């Protein structure tokens, strides 16, 4: 009882106590320094590292996504380019084939025309030669006929008639 009364007299709710302030300061500073060394340093370093790790993971993921998107775009580009290339090659091939066909046909036609022309000219030549041969043959026959006639019937009037009729005959035959 007595102690509590004495304490109540000594102490007041707002009375300053420099000793307690001193102890508070000393205790707090020591705790602060020790905790800074053993706890806050490692904890905050770990938290910051984790934050950085998470951030870099997110960054990496974004980067990978960007990269894959770029690759996909590139692939699509390549694919469409290849399609265009194939189209072009087919078109060119078709064009070439068309041209080649036209060339060959043209050449063949020309060739055939030439051949026909050559055949015609050679036929003409043969005809001329045959006619020449025939003329010579006819002249020889005429000479031979005349020789025979002259040898057998030497009659002036008759001879004249015969020669005339023979010439007549020859001319009609020839035409």
């Amino acid at each position, binding site marked *: 009882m007595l102690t509590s009364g004495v*304490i109540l007299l000594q102490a007041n709710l707002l009375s300053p*106590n420099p*000793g307690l302030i001193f102890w508070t300061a000393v205790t*707090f500073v020591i705790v*602060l320094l020790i905790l*800074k060394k053993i*706890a806050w340093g490692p904890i*905050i370093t*770990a938290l910051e590292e984790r934050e950085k790790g998470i951030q870099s993971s997110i960054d990496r993921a974004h980067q990978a996504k960007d990269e894959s998107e770029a690759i996909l775009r590139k692939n699509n580009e390549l694919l469409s380019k290849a399609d265009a290339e194939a189209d072009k090659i087919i078109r060119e091939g078709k064009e070439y084939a068309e041209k080649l066909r036209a060339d060959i046909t043209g050449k063949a036609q020309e060739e055939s025309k030439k051949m026909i022309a050559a055949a015609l000219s050679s036929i003409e030549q043969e005809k001329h030669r045959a006619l020449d041969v025939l003329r010579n043959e006819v002249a020889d026959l005429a000479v031979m006929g005349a020789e025979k006639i002259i040898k057998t019937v030497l009659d002036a009037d008759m001879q004249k008639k015969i020669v005339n009729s023979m010439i007549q005959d020859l001319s009609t035959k020839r035409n």
Partner: protein
Amino acid sequence: MKRLNVLHPKALLKVMAILVPLLVSVGGVSGLSYAQSPSVSAEVVSATAAESGHAVPAAHEEEKAGDVIMHHIFDSNIFAFHPFGEIELPKIAPVAGIDISITKHVVMMWLVSAILLIIFSVVGGKYKKMTNRQAPKGLTNAVEALVEFIRLDVAKSNIGHGYEKHLPYLLTVFFFILLCNLLGLVPYGATATGNINVTLALAIFTFFITQIAALKAHGLKGFLAHLTAGTHWSLWIIMIPIEVIGLFTKPFALAIRLFANMTAGHIVILSLIFISFILKSYIVAVAVSVPFSIFIYLLELFVAFLQAFIFTMLSALFIGLATAHDGHDEHAAEVAHH
């Protein structure tokens, strides 16, 4: 002392006005052996109940109630473990005119420090071993939630650039105050933060850290220019004293807020318990004292966290204001109304 005696009958009158019907009906019951009633309250706050059990049987209950409440709240050289006896703490000879004897609150602070050191040496050790691919669990996880809260929501959002420098102080002050507050709610404990000297010492740290941060951020010239608040020179005679007073009121308010909150809660709990002793009624004890003191006790648990947070938050805010290049005290004043 005198002031308290004046206040107490007034409070009692109010309580009486509420409890007159109860008192009338309870007259017979109160005749029972009264000395056992502390055992009822012991379930709630065994420390306070045990102390009151020691003090109450004396003749003048009404006077003694105030004494016991004050005895519980005040610092002393005696660490009492009623009914198991008490430990007289050693006296140390005054150094340079200052009495630096170890008191109850000093012992509580050391206890808090010891617990903090144990918890954080364990947690710190775990963090040293942990890679950043591992998630924390258990105690580490619980501590990390608080640390991360102080780091991001208190320090980073209030101080901004260069908050890392002040982080150790803010974290230490938060956990120190939190544990001091909580140990005050433990049986046989005492609330070190319910002592104005302790809170003042902590506020002085905040004051110095704030001023040093301001000096570093603005230089001596900027620091002095800040005292004029950028007004015309003819107003300096008004502005400079106001600004200088402003420098001191912030930490002072910090100290008073924490001290008053912690003290008030304890006085309310003890007063509620003492209502039953003063009125000598079991019904009052069961219907009023126990439920209300449980309620206040739970509220105190919340207040313990809240006040630790507010002290840290305001410290961070003051540091942030001191280092910020523009803006002034209006924002601080708004927040300081907690």
